[in-house]
């Protein structure tokens, strides 16, 4: 427990709070990686997921992809790309994007799938065009699940970005690996605590956003704690929360 106090002291040390190796800079790097990777992954995965969810085509491939990625060791992927493409920040970002795509994809298509067929039939019979059905029915109703997918992807990238420090990517993992190399356990611990704080803060922010985006008057899309979960409520929980490491 003494180590924990030392690590907190390390974090509070003014010498570690500024400069290119300071905590604010490293944290900004970490968050920037996460933002860029999740944004790029979303750019690809959201349209693709919406297409799969709306048409129902390609679903088997999407399910296999999202399930299969769970078996993929993220450390191996990051290291492999680093060896193939060299040290720097581009190979890790590519690895992050690849690892983030399945979660976002799953969120996008399962959000559409969770929409009650009767609701879509009703929209169609009221004269909505396909475009309107997508934009005004499926997208808003599927939003909580999409946010859930983005949440999983974000946590995955935060975790993987920690590991990527070993190939020179910067970020908060830098402290952990430097501590590991120099047997400086306090620094390792400080880096780990910072990463955990970032992850938990992001998790709480996303959980709140996910709750806020449920359209007024809709309860089916809200993650529930019902004692007897129906298929609907189970479908509305975070997709692929598993495998975010």
């Amino acid at each position, binding site marked *: 427990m003494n180590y924990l106090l030392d690590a907190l002291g390390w974090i509070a040390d003014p010498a570690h709070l500024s400069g290119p190796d300071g905590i604010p800079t490293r944290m900004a790097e970490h968050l920037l990686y996460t933002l860029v990777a999740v944004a790029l992954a979303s750019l690809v995965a959201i349209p693709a997921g919406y297409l799969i969810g709306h048409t129902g085509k390609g679903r088997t491939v999407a399910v296999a992809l999202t399930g299969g990625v769970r*078996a993929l060791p*993220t*450390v191996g992927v990051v290291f492999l790309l680093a060896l193939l493409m060299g040290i720097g920040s581009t190979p890790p970002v590519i690895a992050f994007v690849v690892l983030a795509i399945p979660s976002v994809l799953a969120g996008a298509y399962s959000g559409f799938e969770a929409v009650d067929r009767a609701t879509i039939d009703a929209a169609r019979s009221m004269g909505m065009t396909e475009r309107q059905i997508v934009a005004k029915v499926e997208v808003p109703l599927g939003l909580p699940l999409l946010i859930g997918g983005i949440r999983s992807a974000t946590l995955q990238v935060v975790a993987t970005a920690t590991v990527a420090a070993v190939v020179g990517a910067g970020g908060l993992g830098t402290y952990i690996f430097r501590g590991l190399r120099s047997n400086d356990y306090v620094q390792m611990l400080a880096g780990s605590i910072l990463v*955990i704080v970032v992850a*938990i803060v992001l998790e709480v922010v996303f959980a709140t956003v996910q709750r806020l985006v449920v359209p007024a008057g809709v309860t089916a899309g809200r993650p529930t704690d019902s004692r007897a979960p129906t298929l609907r409520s189970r479908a509305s929980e975070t997709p692929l929360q598993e495998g975010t490491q």
Partner: protein
Amino acid sequence: MTWVWANADFILDKTLVHLQLSLTAIVLSLVLAVPIGWAANRVAPLRGIVLTVAGLFYSVPSFALLVVLPTVVGYGLRSDTNLVVALTLYGLALMVRSVADGLASVEPDVRQSATAVGYSGWQRFWRVEIPLAGPVLLAGLRVVAVSTISLATVGGLIGINGLGLLFTDGLQRYILEEIVAGIVMTIVLALLVDAALVLLGRALMPWSRGPSRAERRQGALVGAAA
């Protein structure tokens, strides 16, 4: 490929160690998840708390957890125990939800019928509720198994034995084949364990695979014989 053939023994050894550590964690997380999931399902206010804590816990990056755990629990950073405890906790975080959901999916009528025909609480739990929750438990356990096996490679970063060592060693010595071998073996292990769980599920829960009419008749006969 030359590297792979020259080091086949080394790869096999790491694979077996990896399997052993992962299996320990998978089994432990199942065993621990059953009582916790049961309690969460039984005591309504507990359910929200347990699931929230599990969800928050699951968001902790694994590498950071491996560094922090030893100070809290008090064993060596590079010990196998550290990895097994971390993996068990992650598995538990996922599995508790499956157990709670699985038990909640058992119809109250069925539970009451079991009580009515004379099952005690303990018997009813093991002979009625657990078998009926079986498919949900199996689905959860499969996810836990695959992600545990893939997650166990993170241990290699701090020198814990297993397939993760192929990654760190391959990176340090610039051996591309070593990293690829590590990735491939991790996926192979995950697929094998997943397949084994599916088979085990079929053996233990013959009713759960949507039997054909002939099989259903056969099942009824077996059931009658038993």
